């Protein structure tokens, strides 16, 4: 069976190595351990729009190179 392209938790496209976990015999694929942990502890998913909104309100972008 082909691996899903998207993270099971955040829904974003998996670009690098995926984080594969097995819980109670079921295989789960995440984009990072970060997403696995949030999923494991039943944190409500943050949508990409939520994230962008949070960044817009609370953060600035720094380019350090």
């Amino acid at each position, binding site marked *: 069976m082909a691996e899903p392209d998207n993270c099971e938790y955040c829904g974003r496209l998996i670009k690098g190595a995926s984080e594969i976990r097995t819980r109670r015999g079921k295989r789960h694929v995440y984009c990072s351990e970060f997403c696995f942990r949030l999923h494991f502890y039943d*944190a409500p998913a943050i949508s990409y729009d939520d*994230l962008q*909104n949070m960044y817009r309100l609370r953060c600035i*972008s*720094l380019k350090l190179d």
Partner: protein
Amino acid sequence: MVTKLDNLVDGTIETDFLIIGGGLVGSMAALRAVQSGKNIDVTVIDKARMEYSGDGVGIDNFLQLPLHKEDIGKDVSGSDARKATFGADRMKGLKSARLDAIALKNAHISLPILDEIGTHVREDDGSIKVVQGYRKGTVWGRLEYDENGKPTDPLFGTFSRGSDLKVKLGTAVRKKGIRVLDRTMLTSIITKDGKAIGATALNVRTGEFLFLKARVLLLATGAMTRLYPYPWAPFPNRLFYTLMSPVLDGGGHVGALNAGAKLYCMEMCTVYVVSKGMNHSSGGGACNWFFKMYNSKGECLEDKYPEKIVTKAGGMIPGVNFLFAPDMQNAGAERDVIMSAKGKATPDEVAAVYFVAATEPPKALKFHQLAGGLTNENPVECVPVLAGIGMATGGVLRENEYSETGVKNLFAAGNVTGSGSTRGFTWACLIADHVLELIQDQNQETIGRDQTEQIGETRKWVFAPLSRKTAYYEINPLELEDYVRQVNYNYVCIHKVKPRLERAIALIRLVKKGAVPLLVANNIHELMRAIEVQNIIEISELHAQSSLIREESRLVPIHYREDYPELDPKWDGKIITARKVAGQVKYSVESLY
């Protein structure tokens, strides 16, 4: 007659650079040292397992950036440096502004390594999203906007990205072929003529006792968080429900103290406010930037006490500590039951809190889940937790600009130095760079009679509780730990007062004399606990004794004396140091300026 070294230890390892503690700082220092391409042998010892150890799992405060964007990379000194180090004004000389200024200039030195190992610190476009805080005088914290919708006097701190960081760093260290000794705890630092030349360590699974001979040592053992019990969990769980890693028994502090280094500000215990049902996070220092706090009547504490304590809760240094500050002039504030309510938060605040919460140690998230879960919508009461020494200030004193302790060739970085985790990465890189230069003209020391005696003494001390036969009574290490932490809770705690502190010291000394010789360990795991409890007892005495000496209140409630409730300017810039001379701890008041 002196016993031969081979008879005292199960193995000897020679290395150039010994890193004690494989947390974020230890891993970063190891990577930086080997990535230089120079021929250097690096060894990391870790009491837990490299990939999952340490009191930080995410980047959180480890990469903090200064004041204003244009200040990054600038040389700063004097009062500018104190301003630039967040909260340093409040610290009033409890931290070295000189060292912070060095770290500040090199704030982003670790980024290339973070990029190389593929952490999620940067966004897809290569930028770093940086959360903004603001500053008003000495108070800084949650972002606010002026009437034009612009942030008020913004400060910067990096957003808590990179929660997969520890796993990636640990894995990278292994992939580089660096020698990693898991499940290996420090038992002593071996010195020769005031110079650190190695360490002894115990494998807490197999019981192997090792001597690690090194040219240079880095102490990166983290904070000391097992000083107080976690009051809302039953024994023995309360000993391990700490907000940081549960392995932090202060072994690094005690090792450094016994080797001749100074410990400082041991009276300063970080206090967090935690809500039982998550909402307001604990370890994720930045969470409190996003949620407003209310009392049980629904009044916003920020509005009710605009100038004082509650709220304006400022992220990293010092912790969340304004929130539950006892205040003799404003008793109402203390009587208020502090609540946090997710229901009143805006969606972006909620998203921010989840985001930050995921960078906490897994144990903290698990605790939140047990206590009501991340989805709890109802207001929940906030409770203070005494988290331990080292997150805000207090720990091993660094005595020069290379972050070296008073013991030559023994460097320290991260929470063990009490600099907070802030700039831990920076110091890891700076120390590794310095070590590379240092070992060029540094030979391995020979082991003399004195060093063999030190190792022999340590061995005797370490294994003493194993299968000990006592005439009347056996003491279990965890039960003793619980007792000592209860003594701290009952007699030291937030509201410190002279008679209680004196009683605490008397009880701790009684424990040392009466109970420690009766400690019994039935296996190697219990032996580890027996060593840990002795470290905890040692730190407890330093904590109570230093609290007694500092006759003022500072950074309330980090240090609050009921009998001296005010901040006393004569203590500005003064630190209390502890140093072992001929087996006795000597305290003195010194200046960091």
